[in-house]
């Protein structure tokens, strides 16, 4: 594919998660020209991987449906997936951007009929379900990233591109949609302003050695737990622990897994407390009064009107709270249960408790894979984007600060206007 036409009146948005989609759409619905680039094969980002939102317990995919409808219907937004920004030259009002577009090996002829997948046997990690982690979810090497993937088009994984399997996939497609001759492309864009909505990634739990994520199968991360609870997830919404596939009814949630810790992330990731409170309700949804959630925390940060959600969860007799940073996790070799060791600091009570499953509320850190920020970008001590020296580039959403979805969208909307201001200034100075 070739890059769309762009001018210094065009806004480039990097990242197709909810923040990027918002920044792009808000500008586009103001009548501005926007190019939205996303490094993965689909829009949606990490919010699409959440089962429910706090505090309403509604579904992120509901908002995704609306945003996708907005994008399909708006001629001002040009979407480029599997595209990374490799270089940004120039300055405020006039940037020269270099894009790298990776081959999808499937063109717009794809009807998502799924015949190519049937023709392929080899599997790859299912990124949407955190398949490279504890869920170990897999999907075919010819795949639709997820049910609401946009563009609604299959992907042939590069691993089978040059192989017989790739050929089989091509042969299976009645519509000439599989194009194995696609090559990586580089293209140049001229834009006036750039919004970096490159998002976040879960902190690498392997680094938190005392919790043994790397050693104990029944210690998982909060993002993986979202997929376990989701009916569209690898377990069909059943909360089964990775160690032995047994139902996990007695679950420990460990807060600040990486966050507020100078050995890992010095900042507070803001969302984890609320996310955990929400997830305790997944346990209730799954097991009713037979479920048991225990939250190990330092401070519960249920900020502003989320407080009442916290109060409701406190009133849920299946949920317990322990003010303690868990010291270490051991494993009961006999039954594979993780054993938590620590001290409840409220009154000093020592515990060594077994749970079926431990969920680490891992912190948010800025996404870096496939993200090459220009030197002009200003970052804080945790590498979140504060802005740019020349004032023509902006951070939006979780790329700018650890934010929940609601505030990420606010941030993206604000960034969108800042970008429009740059465009406006350029236009008016050119007019003058």
């Amino acid at each position, binding site marked *: 594919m070739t890059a769309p036409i762009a001018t210094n009146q065009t806004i480039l948005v990097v990242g197709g998660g909810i923040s990027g989609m918002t920044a792009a759409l808000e500008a586009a619905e103001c009548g501005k020209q926007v190019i939205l680039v996303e490094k993965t094969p689909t829009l949606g980002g990490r919010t699409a991987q959440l089962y429910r939102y706090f505090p309403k317990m509604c579904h992120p995919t509901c908002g995704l449906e609306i945003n996708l409808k907005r994008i399909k219907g708006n001629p001002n937004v040009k979407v480029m997936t599997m595209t990374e920004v490799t270089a940004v030259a120039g300055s405020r009002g006039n940037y020269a951007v270099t894009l790298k577009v990776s081959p999808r090996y499937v063109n717009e002829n794809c009807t998502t009929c799924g015949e190519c997948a049937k023709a392929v046997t080899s599997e790859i990690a299912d990124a949407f379900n955190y398949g490279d982690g504890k869920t170990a979810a897999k999907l075919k090497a010819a795949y639709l990233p997820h049910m609401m993937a946009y563009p609604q088009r299959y992907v042939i994984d590069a691993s089978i591109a040059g192989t017989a399997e790739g050929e089989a996939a091509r042969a299976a497609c009645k519509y000439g949609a599989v194009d194995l001759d696609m090559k990586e492309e580089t293209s140049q864009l001229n834009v006036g302003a750039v919004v970096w909505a490159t998002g976040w990634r879960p902190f690498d739990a392997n680094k938190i050695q005392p919790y043994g994520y790397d050693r104990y199968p029944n210690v998982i991360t909060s993002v993986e737990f979202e997929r376990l609870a989701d009916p569209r997830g690898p377990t069909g919404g059943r909360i089964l622990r990775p160690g032995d596939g047994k139902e996990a009814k007695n679950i420990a949630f460990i807060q600040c897994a990486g966050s507020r810790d*100078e050995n890992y992330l010095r900042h507070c990731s803001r969302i984890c407390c609320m996310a955990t409170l929400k997830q305790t309700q997944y346990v209730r949804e799954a097991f009713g009064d037979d479920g048991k959630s225990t939250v190990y925390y330092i401070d519960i940060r249920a900020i502003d009107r989320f407080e009442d959600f916290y109060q409701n969860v406190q009133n849920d007799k299946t949920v317990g709270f322990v003010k303690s940073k868990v010291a270490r996790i051991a494993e009961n070799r006999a039954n594979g249960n993780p054993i938590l060791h620590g001290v409840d600091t409220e009154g000093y009570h*020592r515990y060594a408790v077994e749970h079926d499953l431990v969920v680490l509320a891992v912190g948010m850190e800025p996404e870096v894979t496939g993200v090459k920020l220009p030197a002009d970008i200003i970052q804080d001590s945790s590498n979140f984007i504060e802005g740019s020296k020349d004032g023509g580039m902006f951070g939006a959403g979780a790329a700018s600060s650890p934010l929940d979805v609601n505030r990420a969208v606010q941030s993206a909307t604000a960034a969108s206007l800042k970008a429009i201001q740059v465009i406006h200034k350029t236009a008016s100075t050119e007019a003058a």
Partner: protein
Amino acid sequence: MTTNANSANQNALARYKNNFLKEVEANVEDGHMVKMCMQCGVCAGSCPLGPAWQHSPQKIFMMIRAGKREEVLGSDSMWMCTSCYNCIVRCPRQLPITHIMHGLANYAHRLDLAPKGQPTREIAKLFWDNLVKTGRVNELKFSLAMYFKDGFGQGVKNAMAMQATGLGLLKAKRLNPMELVGGHKCKDIGGFRKMVAKAREIEDRRRGLA
């Protein structure tokens, strides 16, 4: 010693009024980090001798901030530290907890507010004296001193109790009776002692313990 300790104690009380945190910051090894604790409790849970603690480290930090001077300095908790450094490596605020515990113990000991007869306290003193005498630790003399620290009778009991162990080491040539006469020591023991005395003098002056 006790009289010195007493006057030192009085000085400290006068100097820091009731601001115990300040006193700790000025006189305890790495005491300036006490204020950085955020009460997560990871240290308390990480200590191998945790169950033996009357107060966990994080609680002691809170007590210091709350000005509970006598309780803190009189606590035997710090004396339970095995120097395993688990707390240090896990502390999310990177407090040098082991050092602070050592520092508190030392300060309490020097003010003579530490629990009387606290075994680790006594043994630590024996150990140090033993060290200063020869520049090296003479294990046999040290152990014997240990056994007899509570008087001759008790000493014999202790020695008998540990006989098996002692004999084992003896057989294994890892306990040398010859140590009783002579044995290992620094050649420049004079210089060594002067040096240690000087160091102590400087530190005591700094801490108003002189």
